[in-house]
């Protein structure tokens, strides 16, 4: 058991959260991270879906990595990912229909999410299943983290709610506070992610200088 959680494995799992975040540092999987974040709930569901799919596609590809011919590996990877995404999409339709309607085509677009292909190519093709699982999970959760941060800011400022619960009190509205409708527009998602990257880099530049 101690071997399963050795130092290297722990790093593989934890690094994507800050130093090596897939969205902020490697710039992967931007498309969906912007589109689903106008509210918190679809952002959380999407983040979890991506984490699960990344983890399991990493495991599957890592198990069959020695039998995949090098020339057609991209198509093999795409088919494995597409099958997993189909399963997740059907589960969402069955158990969380309203969220799956909100996410619309972006569930299907997990297939072309570069985080998946990036991790499969860079990690799962040359590592054992267990580290691959941790790597996939870590990267998926690192991605989910950004989704949740951006989703929370946009929902709080754009609608005054979090997960549909009203956060900003009525007295604030009475005093003249107005929801920023701009926050629910696509354009603000881009600007917010830009600011998150800015803060992240400013912070880590300082750490490096120290």
């Amino acid at each position, binding site marked *: 058991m101690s071997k399963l959680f050795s130092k290297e494995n722990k790093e593989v799992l934890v690094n994507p959260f800050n130093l090596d975040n897939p969205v902020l540092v490697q710039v992967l999987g931007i*498309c969906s991270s912007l589109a689903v974040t106008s509210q918190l709930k679809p952002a959380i569901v999407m983040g979890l879906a991506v984490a699960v799919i990344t983890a399991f596609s990493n495991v599957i590809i890592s198990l069959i990595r020695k039998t995949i011919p090098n020339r057609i590996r*991209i198509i093999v990877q795409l088919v494995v990912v597409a099958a997993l995404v189909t399963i997740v999409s*059907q589960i969402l339709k069955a158990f969380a229909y309203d969220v799956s309607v909100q996410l619309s085509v972006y569930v299907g*677009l997990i297939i072309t999410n570069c985080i998946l292909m990036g991790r499969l190519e860079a990690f799962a093709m040359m590592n054992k299943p267990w580290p691959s699982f941790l790597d996939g999970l870590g990267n998926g959760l690192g991605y989910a983290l950004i989704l949740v941060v951006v989703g929370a800011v946009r929902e709080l400022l754009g609608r005054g709610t979090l997960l549909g619960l009203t956060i900003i009190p009525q007295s604030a509205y009475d005093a003249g506070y107005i929801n920023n409708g701009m926050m629910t527009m696509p354009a603000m998602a881009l600007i917010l992610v830009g*600011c998150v990257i800015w803060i992240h*880099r400013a912070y880590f530049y300082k750490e490096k200088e120290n």
Partner: protein
Amino acid sequence: MEHLISLFFRSIFVDNMIFAFFLGMCSFLAVSKNVKTSLGLGLAVTFVLLVTVPVDYLLQVYVLGPDCLIEGVDLSYLSFILFIAVIAGMTQLVEMAVEKYSPSLYAALGIFLPLIAVNCAIMGASLFMQQRINLDPSNTQYIGNVWDAIAYAVGSGLGWTLAIVSMGAIREKMQYSDVPKPLQGLGITFITVGLMAMAMMCFSGLKF
């Protein structure tokens, strides 16, 4: 005819792949460093869209839809796998064709040509097309036949090209401006795209 034109212009300006749906952002951010390669990639994406969306439309209508192959069976849950297979196959074909007939373009596009297979704009266009089949025919976004699908594909491709070329031009100019250090590169690019998206929102009332 009127519907075709309206669909075409709407998919360029209003339902722009980048500014309204954020599709194809990864290669958009990676490639838009100068105008020339941006234009090349934009045209390649437009071409792959032009081929894959009509093919996926025919598949959806004649193979995957309810009661198409077998009475009472709806195969549309297979659409993800089938669409991605079509896209990957088509990209391979386009790559081979370009390599044979225009080696100079092939050399210019380099690695980006095979990467089109995992460009979300391509997959996204097919998935949006699948949704739009079920819309009301009076809706300007409705796709009812192959010609509509072609108009939608070309419109989205040109919209994507427009976005990446203008971004390339802005980034060429931005090299000379004094950006705070942590904001350089990615951060400022995101904020610029956000401002461009805000400007593109002016088109949202566009009607023909």
